[in-house]
């Protein structure tokens, strides 16, 4: 029999994801792993992992990883890349890490056009600490620190990362994708591959924002959580490629 789908080679032997049931981190990491395999990058990859659920990428992928302090994954990735211009360097971050505590580092890494790729999981909440209000929390969304729902008076508005990053002249590729359906998962993989390729071609900063579910903190079943990504998140965070210098 022919194998149609199997575990990517770069996954650690006997790995077992420690995320909650239905969490999309596993899908995002699988896509990253598949691209590392397809582009044969394992031996030249150094990942800068961020604090939050995303930090555990080094438990699952058999690659070199430096754990950056909270919010500083892009800064550490900059250090890795400047010291090793021949390596493939990517960050794997959550929205709190990338867009809240680390927004300055993220923006300036894009503005400098650092030849690194950044992946940001947007699940509209701080997942690891139990579902608090974060930079991407939707208007009206109830979290443990927005018990009456996000309103503009107290909390302001959610950040649109992919659009902001696309505005930076140093950005070579910026896209927003989602993991709520199989077609979207396929598109997500294409976008991630592109964000990796622009780095390999030396064109600049590659960025992918991934709309993901957090069933546990949304108090939903995995299916309901994907429906929410489709019905509530995508209308606010439209999917698409916001910048692609290779298409210009």
């Amino acid at each position, binding site marked *: 029999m022919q194998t149609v789908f199997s575990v990517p080679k770069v996954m650690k032997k006997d790995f077992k994801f420690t995320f909650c049931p239905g969490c999309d981190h596993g899908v995002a990491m699988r896509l990253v792993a598949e691209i590392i395999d397809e582009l044969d990058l394992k031996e030249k990859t*150094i990942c800068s*992992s961020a604090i939050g659920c995303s930090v555990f990428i080094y438990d699952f*992928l058999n690659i070199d*990883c*430096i754990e950056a302090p909270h919010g500083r994954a892009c800064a550490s990735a900059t250090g*890795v890349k400047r*010291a090793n211009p021949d390596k*493939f360097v990517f960050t794997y971050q959550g929205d709190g890490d990338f867009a809240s505590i680390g927004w*300055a*580092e993220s923006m300036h890494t894009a503005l400098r056009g650092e030849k690194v790729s950044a992946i940001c999981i947007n699940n509209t909440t701080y997942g690891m600490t139990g579902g608090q209000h974060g930079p991407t929390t939707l208007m009206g969304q109830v979290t443990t620190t927005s018990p009456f729902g996000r309103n503009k008076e107290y909390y302001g508005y959610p950040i649109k990362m992919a659009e902001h990053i696309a505005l930076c002249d140093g950005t070579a590729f910026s896209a927003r994708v989602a993991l709520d359906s199989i077609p979207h998962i396929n598109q997500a993989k294409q976008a991630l591959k592109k964000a990796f390729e622009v780095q390999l071609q030396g064109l600049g900063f590659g960025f992918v924002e991934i709309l993901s579910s957090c069933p546990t903190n949304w108090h939903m079943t995995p299916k309901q959580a994907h429906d929410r990504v489709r019905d509530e998140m995508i209308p606010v965070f439209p999917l698409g490629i916001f910048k692609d210098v290779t298409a210009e």
Partner: protein
Amino acid sequence: MISDKKVLIKGNYAIAQAAINAGCQCYFGYPITPQTEIGEYLSAKMPELGRGYVCAESELGAINMVVGASATGVKAMTSSSSCAIALMQEALSYAYSDELPAVVVNVMRAGPGLGYVYPAQGDYNQAVYGGGNGDYKIIVLAPSTVQECIDYTYRAFYLAQKYRNPVMLLADGLLGQMMEPACFGEYPYPEVDVSSWALKGAKGRDGKAIYSCARDEQEHIRKIERLFAKFELIAENETSYEEDLTKDADIVLTAFGSMTRNIKAATRALREKGIKAGWFRPITLSPFPTKRIYELAKEGKDFVVVEMNMGQMFKDVKYAINGEAHVDLINRPCGEWLSVEEIVSSVEKIMGGKYANCI
């Protein structure tokens, strides 16, 4: 600039050029007085040499770039001053836990808060005890001359790599801005093999992760005990200090960094007045030369700590003396350095009428 000839050079430039000579591959920094010349100098030199230079968005950015670069085994450095070094404390705690050979230069200004740009020594506690979280220790070297800025920058890179521990060069605005004749020479230390731990991509081996996240309590305890045992070894091998005229001294003047210059002169002046003074200066503030200070105290010598802060090293000297001798403090929080005359008259006052009739 590798030469045996003496050159007249500013402390900040000396540190920057010494970093280049030491093989620093990457410098990341953000401007702050009184150390901005380090970044200015390196912004011109590093690109010429094909090395990494980033004008970082903040000190947070800068130190975390050092974290990334040093995780790949290269020599990397940042420099800053007092209130901005405060911003780097979190990453220093990480770098210690990650065992990264990060080199940080602090050219001190006056605090607390924004303080001002005149010199001070108020960051002794911040450097030696750290402002980061958890049990951690970094190596701290305190130069007192421009020549020592060069020598200890070399040593900082070597110790950082040898022990995989962050090292801070604790200078001050006086040294940073001062011009003195100094000689660079060649980087005098051997290169350290980092291949066993440096992240270079998982080529022909499994992936390695450098992290401080601890999820197994027993493993966490063992790690901290191992790191503290390593620092014991550092203390044994690397603790350094300088002293003179202590043999027959009744009183030992103690200072660190550029205040060392004034206690040397004050000691001579006191000797001329017939007072048996000596001087002692720790070169490594961490590890601190506790043992030597205790030995001197046991011999019955009293101590006077002279520093430009409210008595930070004073506490460590007092701890080292452990009740065996008397210890006093001559200090000012910041600004004009305590002059030789001030030190001499304060020492005389401390010693009371005891030596009033000496010639």
